[in-house]
């Protein structure tokens, strides 16, 4: 094999795909620290909104020790890509999160993100989100229904105008003038509903792949002409937290970041927070060593599967997918799809239902592999994924085998 090709393959897989700058120097962080302190001071002076509850008390009642909470805070600090010295600030931010009003709406969706959120980790959901974040309105979780719910929403919108964060779950169907989805007695379309609520929001967070890119409703042939929040909401900060379901840790992370700094976290070109979507699944995958060694699962349930080998040949999209599930995992970090021997389906990338599909190795899936070497940043990489033609990532599967590390076919030969 030509050396140049070997070299470029090597570069592709050694590339620090995500140039997320986690070390901005002492001065930057010292500055940020002071800013955060000031911000937290301001929040503390504000009254807790809605059903705000004292986090400390709740934790105590629930038998959580301060140590458990600080452990969670230090993990969250790391997740937000802040230096360890910020841990006390993150802990404080969690305690004043009830000053930030949150409105959560569901459009064209399956309620999966609410379900995932309901079992968020750390200080558990009831403490951290339902008590600590002041969830002013949630269509699925709240006790009120019908007219009563609409009234409650109107009140929240008026009272917290310009201050609340709007969380949106689900896509927006635009077909037949938006009449695939309507809400309330006035039959407001999802689009109008979203625009009205976004108008008074400080920021809009699209939760899950449907709200981000249209997700499953937008998959071919897109029967309802569904689109994502960023296609509708203009002139407002939009933050995307894709994945199906979105990881609750990242949802909480965004609110925490906002409480801490008063601003939205740094975003990539697809408006995803870099702290969560700065790296590929592949970069931190627990099975990565097997990829490097050329050890693959070739059939469900084979020897490779029993030994937790790399799932690339079974169609795993980890090398093309930006997300932190390999670190954060799901359901209180107990596991994640690759942990149960099922490849990543690429659910945090645009159009993944049509472009990525599953169980088809990428070489057969008609998707273009990313190009670029060490200099590429996550932004360029993300765009490259969509537009650039390049070396099929599948070559590596062959290349590492050719490198003589391991060839499962040899056994048969």
């Amino acid at each position, binding site marked *: 094999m030509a050396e140049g090709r070997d070299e470029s393959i090597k570069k592709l897989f050694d590339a620090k795909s995500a140039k997320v700058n986690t070390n901005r120097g002492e001065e930057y962080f010292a500055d940020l620290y002071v800013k955060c302190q000031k911000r937290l001071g301001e929040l503390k002076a504000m009254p807790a909104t809605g059903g705000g509850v004292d986090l400390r008390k709740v934790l105590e009642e629930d038998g959580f020790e301060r140590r458990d909470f600080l452990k969670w805070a230090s993990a969250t600090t790391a997740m937000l890509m802040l230096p360890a010295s910020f841990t006390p600030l993150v802990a404080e931010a969690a305690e004043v999160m009830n000053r930030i009003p949150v409105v959560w709406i569901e459009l064209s969706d399956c309620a999966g993100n609410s379900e995932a959120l309901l079992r968020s980790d750390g200080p558990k959901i009831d403490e951290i989100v339902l008590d600590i974040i002041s969830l002013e309105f949630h269509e699925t979780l709240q006790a009120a229904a019908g007219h009563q719910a609409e009234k409650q929403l109107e009140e929240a919108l008026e009272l917290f105008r310009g201050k609340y964060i709007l969380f949106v779950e689900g896509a927006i169907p635009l077909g037949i003038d938006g009449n695939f989805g309507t809400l309330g*007695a006035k039959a407001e379309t999802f689009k109008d509903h979203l625009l009205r609520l976004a108008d008074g929001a400080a920021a809009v967070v699209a939760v899950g792949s449907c709200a981000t890119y249209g997700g499953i409703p937008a998959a071919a042939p897109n029967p309802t002409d569904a689109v994502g929040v960023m296609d509708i909401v203009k002139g407002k900060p939009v933050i995307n937290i894709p994945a199906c379901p979105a990881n609750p840790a990242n949802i909480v992370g965004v609110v925490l970041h906002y409480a801490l700094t008063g601003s939205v976290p740094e975003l990539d070109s697809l408006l995803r927070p870099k702290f969560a979507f700065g790296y590929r699944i592949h970069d931190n995958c627990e099975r990565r060593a097997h990829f490097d060694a050329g050890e693959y699962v070739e059939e*469900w349930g084979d020897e490779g599967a029993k030994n937790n080998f790399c799932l690339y040949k079974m169609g795993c999209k980890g090398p093309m997918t930006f997300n932190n599930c390999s670190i954060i995992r799901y359901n209180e970090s107990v596991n994640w799809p690759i942990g149960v*021997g099922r490849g990543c389906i690429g659910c945090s990338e645009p159009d993944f239902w049509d472009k990525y599909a599953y169980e088809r190795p990428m070489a057969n899936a008609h998707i273009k592999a990313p190009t670029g070497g060490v200099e590429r940043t996550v932004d360029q990489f993300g765009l490259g994924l969509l537009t650039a033609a390049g070396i099929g990532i599948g070559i590596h599967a062959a290349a590492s085998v050719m490198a003589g590390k391991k060839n499962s076919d040899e056994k048969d030969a």
Partner: protein
Amino acid sequence: MIKKDIIEKIEGEADVVFTKKNGVVDDIDLIFPYSRGIESILEGREYRDALVIAPRVCGICSHSHLIAAVNAIEDGFRKANIAFELTEKARCIRDFALSCELIQNHIKWLYLVILPELYKINRLEIPGDLIKKASKITYAITKAMAIFTGQWPHASYVVAGGVSCDPSYVEVLQAKALVDEVLEYMHEALFNPKEMSILKDMESVFTLLEKADILSLCMHTENFLALGDTFFSRSGVYKEGILSKIDIEKIEEITRYESKAKDVLYDHEFVEVGPLARALINQDEIVNGIYKEYKSGIWSRIFARIFEGYTLTLKAKEILECMDVSQQSCVLSHHKKSLSFSGIGIVEAARGSLVHEIVIKENRIDTYNIITPSQWNLSRGSVNKKGVARQAVRGARSKEEAYLILRSFDLCSVCTTQ
């Protein structure tokens, strides 16, 4: 006097139009104005894609949809003469995960839907700790599930011929500890295992129903159906006290232009599906005792559902105890040649019988049809022949009572209109 109103609550939304006569609810009309067209999204794709797309029909019962999809594919394989037998281990893992999904659904419904509604109807303040109580069980049980499924909701660990995970005994023990935690909680708050009597929170349900004088509210024509033969329930029809066998051919789906949801009938009749139906068809003695007294009223329905959650927890523990992890996870290798087949997958989901029907032509999905539990219970029907929930709300003395009746079926509009 006709008054249009809206109902929207945990798990979806639907429009309800109430018609009152002499101060009581005479009739309702249920309209599901919303649809994503998932069946048409599935059509034309490779059949294995159904295993990742079908769960997304509903984030609440994603695992049931996953199992229905794989059952449909495996049924099709068998009909196409591809012989295979799932290992006991693969079956155990699927059953365990399904139990977990049902348990968390049942428990969440009790604490987040039923109890708050009952406090409201009695004009009492809703206790603040209900969400915490629900989350205690649901955290533990979904965590136990994710040990085998990778995540919940939207797990995708199931493949035709088995499962992709290969757990060790350490993981089985980890799951068992979590199930024990759930059982302990249930023995404290719901059922006394020694005397088989109800405890605290179930007592609250009974007392609140009694106080509002609605224990037997919500009766219909006593026609029940369960389509699935599963590790915890049998299939059958239970009509006016008589139990008979099912015949899949008798299922009939009717498109209704007013709503995105299709009506579904069995043998030309509307039937109730779900935990109460399953318990009656299983001839469960305890539930039968309650049914004799309260018929198809609210208390029977609530008791049957929560009691099923409890018995499933015991089953889940049993499954873990006898799981042999040394067996194969998956017995089918991938078929290289092009396949054409059709199959039906049936699952008993939290709210009742779920059906996926597929026709595959040369590896591509030709048609995909889904019948969901809420479609059975919430079929509209006509003025002369009304759907089950529509029969049940008749005579409700207030809007609150009518809401409570509808919620005792736990409508899921997400599923119903897909």
